[in-house]
């Protein structure tokens, strides 16, 4: 077992799968000699050659589109979009083609591609480098949207994404790339998609988060423990399709729920979870469900980004109001 950072875990998962499945190939801007701007693909071109680790022209729409073509013909392309601010041109291909190829052809053609991208704020990056568009992709029928929150989950979930027969959007929280290391067994063992992970057990309130926000959420759970509040924490991991059962089970136990995400509040994915709880577990609730999200503003440049990202204080405050309201 090696101690890996999240970005190293991504690198190991890519290398493992490329070594074991010849149909896997990587494409994206600067992923070859440079190893990706975050080094996620470090050393892979030297190891697997230029035909399987392709430095593409600067053309995100075509990167996604050629991946659809490759995937339909039996390859398993893993496309990297350098930052999520530049992922928007892929939406045309992802929504009109990647997500529907199976359905449109009644299963005759399929699209086992992975679209990877670093995402989220918190690394003092320039304009358009800090966006959180998971809800846009989650809204597209036929896609999977996966957000790992730790090196081990990045490794196991990315392997699962590459092995999945359908298109997966894999969003890697940039803020976590090098934040901490974790023991990861590089043995090719995947983690389940479409499943939430119970990250911490508790009985008073359910905190639901994903990706980088797991950091603030777990820290808030620690702070709450000091104040005598026992929080359960769920890592959603696969945003879409959503494992609502795990969340409902927890909410039925605790009677309270706070959903935390870094994307803007309105029409964020937290709204979906809250609505599901309202439909299916309203009478288990002791207090209204609350969301702690970014404000409905443009991700600010770096000087204000800490005020944009929901803080531990904001989560604790929301939990306290939920506790008091019941």
């Amino acid at each position, binding site marked *: 077992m090696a101690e890996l950072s999240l970005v190293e875990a991504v690198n190991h998962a890519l290398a493992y799968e490329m070594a074991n499945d010849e149909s896997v190939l990587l494409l994206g*801007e*600067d992923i*070859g*000699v*440079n*190893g990706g*701007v975050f080094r996620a693909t470090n050393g892979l071109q030297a190891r697997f050659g230029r035909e399987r680790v392709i*430095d593409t*022209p*600067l*053309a*995100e*729409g*075509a990167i996604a589109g050629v991946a659809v073509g490759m995937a339909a013909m039996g390859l398993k392309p893993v496309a990297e979009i350098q930052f999520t*601010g*530049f992922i928007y*041109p892929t939406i045309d291909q992802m929504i009109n083609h990647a997500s529907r190829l199976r359905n449109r052809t009644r299963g005759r053609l399929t699209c086992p591609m992975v679209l990877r991208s670093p995402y989220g704020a918190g690394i*003092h*990056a*320039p*304009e*358009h*480098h800090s966006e959180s568009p998971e809800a846009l992709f989650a809204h597209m029928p036929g896609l999977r949207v996966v957000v790992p929150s730790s090196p081990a989950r990045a490794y196991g979930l990315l392997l699962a994404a590459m092995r999945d027969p359908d298109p997966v959007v894999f969003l890697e929280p940039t803020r976590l790339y090098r934040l901490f290391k974790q023991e990861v067994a590089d043995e090719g063992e995947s983690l389940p998609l479409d499943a939430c992970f119970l990250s911490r057990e508790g009985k008073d309130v359910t905190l639901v988060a994903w990706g980088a926000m797991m950091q603030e959420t777990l820290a808030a759970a620690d702070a709450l423990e000091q104040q005598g509040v026992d929080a359960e924490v769920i890592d959603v991991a696969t945003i879409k399709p959503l494992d609502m059962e795990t969340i409902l089970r927890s909410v039925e136990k605790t009677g309270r729920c706070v959903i935390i995400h870094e994307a803007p*509040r309105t029409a964020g994915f937290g709204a979906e979870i809250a609505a599901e709880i309202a439909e299916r577990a309203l009478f288990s609730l002791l207090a209204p469900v609350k969301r702690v999200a970014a*404000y*409905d*503003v*443009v991700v*600010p*440049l*770096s*000087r*204000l*980004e*800490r*005020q*944009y990202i929901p*803080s531990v*204080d*904001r989560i604790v*405050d929301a939990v306290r109001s939920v506790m008091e309201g019941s």
Partner: protein
Amino acid sequence: MGIHTSVDPETGAVRFLSPEGALCRPIPSSLSDELLVTLYRAMTRTRIFDGKAVALQRTGQLGTFASALGQEAVGVGAAAAMQAHDVLAPSYRDHGAQFLRGMTMAECLLYWGGDERGSDFAGPRLDFPNCVPVATQIAHAVGASYAFRLQRADRVVVTFIGDGGTANGGFYEALNMAGVWRTPTVIIINNNGWAISTPCALECAAPTLAQKGVAVGIEGWQIDGNDVVAVYDTVRQAVEKARAGQGPTLIEALTYRLGDHTTADDATRYRDPELVRREWAREPIARLRAYLLRKGAWNQEKEDALQRESLEEVGQAVNAYLATHSAGCDAMFDHLYATLPASYVSQRDTARRFEPKGGGGHG
């Protein structure tokens, strides 16, 4: 003096000054000695600014920064050929042009230091802000120039894009519209050889980028982008042509990125330092200086004074930048809509309630 050809013998691009600063053909009448000195001063100021900005980033006082080291002639030459009431739609490496148009160095630092107020230029009020998503600015330039034509305004729009950017759909689509609509647009490809680690040959298999104009019915000219005379004179012609209602021009300026892509990049990972060392022999500032010195239009005394003044100017901009306090959380809401919708008030209240004391720092 010098060889009397009008083009770079290797690339065929239009050139007036050789890398040694020798005349390849007569300096056009549009460029007086006084203007040449102005261009020289502007390029030097840009280079000194870049050096300081990189140093600020290295010491944690600035965010990621994209230096124009080695490419000063493109931005400076092009901006000098524009009129104040024309409009610039820049990419993110065009502060050389922006400074000439009146954006202050402090504003530039503020932007890269992570503060939106850096894009609220005091000078060129109609110029577009830096454009980070590659190639998206070309369509803005075409739309803006269409607006000017419709308004019978005597205005031209100049826009910049990198070599890598020309691989992007946004570039092709906008270029095609400029061709069809014959808008008063000048599109300048800043071909510095690299799109981060990707060399031009992996972005495009055509022999030149200028010929991308052919497919959309736009004239494409290739110039030596390290020769500020060639840049100025060519852009001037393209701007005049646009102003006269004769449509858009695509200009490929051949230059070289002597620095890293940005301060977040390490070019030694993918680029032979020997290549870069050789390119230093072609750089634009020494070239013009050699010419001006030989002509007697410049001397060591003036050079020393320029260095001193520029360092002082940059130093003052840095001080102004460092003294600018964080705007505070309200800034996230202030310019979102013309007036803040009622539904936002409680969000802003929350932001205020959780605003840390003392505000944000630099970089």
